[in-house]
């Protein structure tokens, strides 16, 4: 019997510090056993449990796209025991990955549609996965216009800065990068909160889906903007966070009403969430 609690052993291939506050690092992981990589088939929007022997596990969104082969990446915020230890690990160290877990953004439904991606702060990891996935030459024609609104408090807190700059240069994606504020005179993108920038750029709701991930306050003020733009609740998609242990809907702690965020989520439409208790 396959043991769903057993992590695949992986080696840390590289560590990149993403933000100027040094609280976010991206870990590139390579499977020790090539057959494990074959088993780890995922879709953008899924997550995995990162496992460190002696400390425990943490649920983290997969930041790479399945179109990127040979490795997986996770961007981890330094918060507690496991993440603090992970931030001190280095290239060549051995750890574990268990997954892929949870559901994913509804790629079948998104086919042929315009996709509006709205992200804030460090909740941009599975959104990065989604953008890379859609921009892949094999996939780009499956989707309509791609619009991205991504904001952070300051330029130094944006994730994946090199990629953001590269996407800015492309014609097949509309990038709207923004910061809450900056004193950098060379800042060439937007200044303003994500809800305000979304309202100003006003992506069309026609034949469109919106995927929104970010801090609760950002989501709270962006949802009315999306509604005003004409996005119905079944076309607004979000990904939730919750304290998790097993990640497979068994240990019982991450439920919202009858749904387990780890197994039935983490991706829900606003319409689905409106029928569940507001306990997240």
């Amino acid at each position, binding site marked *: 019997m396959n043991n769903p609690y057993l992590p695949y052993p992986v080696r840390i291939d590289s560590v990149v510090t993403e933000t100027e506050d040094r609280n976010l690092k991206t870990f590139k992981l390579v499977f020790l056993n090539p057959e494990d990589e074959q088993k780890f088939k995922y879709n953008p929007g899924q997550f995995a449990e990162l496992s460190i022997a*002696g400390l*425990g596990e943490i649920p983290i969104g997969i930041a790479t796209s399945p179109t990127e082969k040979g490795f997986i990446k996770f961007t981890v915020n330094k918060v507690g025991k496991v993440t603090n230890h992970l931030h001190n690990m280095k290239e060549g*160290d051995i750890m574990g990955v268990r997954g892929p877990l949870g559901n994913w953004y509804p790629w079948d439904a998104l086919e042929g549609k315009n996709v509006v991606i709205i992200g804030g702060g460090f909740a941009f990891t599975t959104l990065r996965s989604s953008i890379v996935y859609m921009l892949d030459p094999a996939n780009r024609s499956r989707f309509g216009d791609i619009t991205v609104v991504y904001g952070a408090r300051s330029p130094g807190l944006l994730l994946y800065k090199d990629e953001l700059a590269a996407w800015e240069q492309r014609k097949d994606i509309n990038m709207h990068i923004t910061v809450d504020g900056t004193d950098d005179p060379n800042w060439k993108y937007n200044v303003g909160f994500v809800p305000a920038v979304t309202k100003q750029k006003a992506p069309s709701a026609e034949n469109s889906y919106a995927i929104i991930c970010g801090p609760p306050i950002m989501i709270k003020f962006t949802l009315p903007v999306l509604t005003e733009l004409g996005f119905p609740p079944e076309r607004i998609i979000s990904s939730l966070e919750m*304290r998790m242990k097993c990640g*497979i809907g068994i240990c019982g702690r991450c*439920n919202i009403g009858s749904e387990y965020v780890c197994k039935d989520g983490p991706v829900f439409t606003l319409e689905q969430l409106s029928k569940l208790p507001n306990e997240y």
Partner: protein
Amino acid sequence: MSDIYISRGKFPEIIGQLMARYRVYAPVLKGEYHEFAKIEKTEEADLGYQNTRLSPKGLFHPHAERMFEYSLVKDDPQAGILKEAPKDFSPRVVLGIRPCDAKAFQLDDVNFDTTAYQDPWWVRRRQTTTLIGLACNEPCGTCFCTSLGTGPFDTAGLDVLLVDTGEGYTAQVLTQKGKDVVGITSGWESVSRTVSEKMEGLRKSAEDSLGRQFDFDPIKQKDMLELFNASFWDEVQFACINCGTCTFLCPTCWCFDIQDEVWGDKGDRIRLWDSCMFPLFTFHGSGHNPRSQKLQRVRQRFMHKLKYYPDKYHNGAACVGCGRCVKFCPVNIDIREVVRRMSATCVCPA
């Protein structure tokens, strides 16, 4: 296979025959209360018990269980790589379990054994264990099994059902596993008419003593959010001290935590029972807690058993009416009263 009978005097021989082939677990008196434990001598099994204080869920989902082990020795190429911890899955008989507790395992199965994921330890223990139940001739005052679709003589979750008829035990063999286990024992005789009539009488008096204490069906029809937002939760939670006794004793409370423990340069990943009564249960790394209030946690426990679980699995309530939470709650919170409140239909004046 028709029912069989054995006299009380010969019954220890049956236990002995089982012990020769299986690991046998039975109710054993420890201090003031009974609990299920592996028996080494036939006389340790005490079938004169009413029920155990702690539910027998630990037989399949131990209170603390080693999942994996690993080395942390520097330069060990296997350091930090988790290996399955060895476990004993040899065939096992659980003797004298109550029908409600056996039914509870079936309710828990839909959580541990799903199409997407199978909990390997739960599933293997279920496969290698035979449940020989013991009907309840005298249910407790806190029991309400018949109100939730099970009963003192319910055979649903069992492989064999024993009935204590005073001078001996009748056995009803219910499954192939039950047939295999009974097949290795000898000394049984056929059930006489007198014994058969006595057994029917016992069943009727046990069931009649329980009655129907509430109607669960209206809860199924009600909207999840209507129940979630109901005002009565404030009264239900008032006395609760969040001690977690209810979840600890409950046969259908399976929630667990996963932790790593390190001893020198060796480590274990273990799982331990956890409880939705504790604030840490849902405490995020960020400091946010979706169930920081006591009311939210008390509501979660009852809503999970009586609304979320039935809505998700269409398998009835996640409660078998064993009454442990009612009997041992230090502040007398009574799930039967909560069900009545949840199922009540308010008829407002026009």
